[in-house]
């Protein structure tokens, strides 16, 4: 029986879905004690969501922190793991998780398996799968230590399926003192899009060099709005100035795992495929029937994207109204 801690990241007043993905998956392996930890307050809804997934106890760590701090979060989480003797500490491989978790794990000289996309437990032993070379291959990851072990899980990789055993967790507040922090966040400048980040989006509509200019991305935004999707771009489109760098999907951009990826005018270079090949369903629109993207697409439309995309928007509008 292992003692497991799940770091719960919030966005506004909601729990990030990756925390629920982890709790659901871990719950498929009964017999472990699973705690959750929040830095700061616990949103009321989160307690219910975690109870539905068999969480034993919810820690609410209070300190002098008023905003995110890599050193602060690392200190709080590593202190809790050490004090409570957790065997495993899970967190989502989000911007925040990828940033502070390595500090937390190394503070305890513990290993961290990062960006894990699937796992099983055999008794108390964790076996994970993670991508290498931007997803061009997969590898098994396991630990060789008796001390605490840290794992970051890629958002959207596990999904939320799984029958869970419920529980009635209590919330325990803990006050932890922090030394003065050195790197301080002075300001957060919001991004231009209100939509989900590409790495967490459920549906993505992406444009390639065939978009010809940045104004034409408007038709992709219209399609995305109907679907509740986030808009991405290939490197070629970004390098040509048609889309912002933060929109780039690919080996040197973002790696995404949506349920649906619609690639518009994207040829399908290896580096782009590396960033989106784990999408559950891929739709490709390209006027070249030999474009490599069609080898990875579940559904392909060989045609002019400027004619196809607006029609897609119309049809989805009809379907979803």
């Amino acid at each position: 029986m292992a003692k497991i801690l799940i770091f719960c990241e919030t966005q506004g007043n909601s729990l990030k879905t990756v925390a629920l993905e982890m709790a659901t998956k871990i719950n498929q392996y009964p017999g472990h004690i699973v705690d959750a930890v929040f830095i700061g307050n616990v949103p009321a809804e989160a307690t219910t969501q975690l109870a539905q997934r068999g969480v034993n106890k919810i820690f609410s760590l209070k300190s002098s922190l008023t905003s995110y701090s890599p050193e602060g979060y690392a200190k709080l989480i590593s202190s809790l793991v050490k004090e409570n003797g957790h065997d495993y500490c899970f967190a989502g491989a989000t911007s925040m998780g990828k940033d502070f978790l390595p500090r937390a794990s190394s503070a305890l000289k513990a290993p961290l398996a990062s960006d894990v996309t699937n796992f099983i437990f055999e008794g108390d032993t964790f076996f994970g799968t993670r991508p290498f070379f931007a997803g061009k291959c997969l590898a098994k990851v396991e630990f060789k230590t008796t001390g605490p072990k840290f794992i970051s899980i890629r958002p959207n990789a596990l999904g939320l399926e799984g029958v869970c055993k419920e529980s009635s967790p209590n919330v325990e507040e803990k006050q932890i003192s922090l030394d003065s922090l050195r790197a301080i966040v002075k300001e957060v400048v919001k991004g231009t899009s209100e939509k989900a980040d590409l790495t967490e989006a459920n549906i993505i509509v992406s444009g390639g060099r065939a978009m010809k200019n940045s104004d034409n991305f408007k038709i992709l935004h219209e399609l995305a709005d109907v679907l509740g999707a986030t808009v991405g771009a290939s490197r070629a489109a970004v390098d040509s100035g048609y889309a912002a760098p933060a929109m780039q999907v690919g080996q040197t951009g973002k790696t995404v795992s949506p349920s649906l990826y619609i690639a518009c005018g994207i040829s399908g270079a290896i580096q782009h495929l590396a960033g989106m090949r784990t999408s559950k369903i891929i739709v490709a629109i390209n006027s070249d029937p030999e474009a490599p993207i069609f080898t990875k697409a579940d559904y392909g439309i060989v045609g002019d994207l400027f004619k196809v995309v607006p029609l897609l928007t119309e049809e989805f509008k009809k379907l979803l109204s």
Partner: protein
Amino acid sequence: MEIFVCVKQVPDTETKIIPKSDGSFIEESQIKWIVNPYDEFAIEQALLIKALKPDTTTVTVIRVGQTRDSEALRNAMAMGADEAILVEANDNLDSLSVAQALKAAIEKSGKKPDLILTGKQAIDDDCLQVPQILAELLNMPSVSVAVAMEFQESQITVKREIEGGALEIYNCPLPAVISCNKGLNTPRYTSLPGILKAKKRPLTTLNLAELGVEAPKILYSNFKLPPEKPAGKKFMALEDKDITGAVQQVVQLLRTEAKVI
């Protein structure tokens, strides 16, 4: 001022990845090795800072890896780095061991680091750990995924990119470890004079065994290709008369067959 830049040599992005038959790693004989693209932003940033006070700033590049990795170090020196350190080690170290080796090598150099720069991630393992671990081991602050940096004498202002293209703006005192993202700067090309100069610059080789690093606590195995998808359905819509039909069919299939809408 002492600046250290940690670099890695990785397979070129065009490389076809072939797992070894025993799954222990990938076939390495056909690989074209390049400097990790994100590390180029780190090297360039170090050189930009050095340009502010060239006579009193030293840029040392450092790599924990195989002997062939001295190529990446010579490349960095061709761009303008002053010195290089190679810690010879096998590639099966985990992030914690690599960071411990980097720390030991930096300490052994006798130089007191003011700033340590790295790429935000290596494009071979995408672990995104070493910079932050190194900072923790050296008891320094860290800011990762830096897309902008303003350098003052004893502190820096760093813009960090997070989800949704949002930016966290940090004030960070030195010494610090900063990991660099695309957009921070435009890495310079190496010139022939630079390449020739690089051959004469000092490259110190250390052996991992002399640095007191722990054995790796993570084991990677069973490298294999991801499962292939079955072939998809393709609808021809090059003629105007076929477009509506193709679109309607795909939308229906996305609902009824794929069940994603």
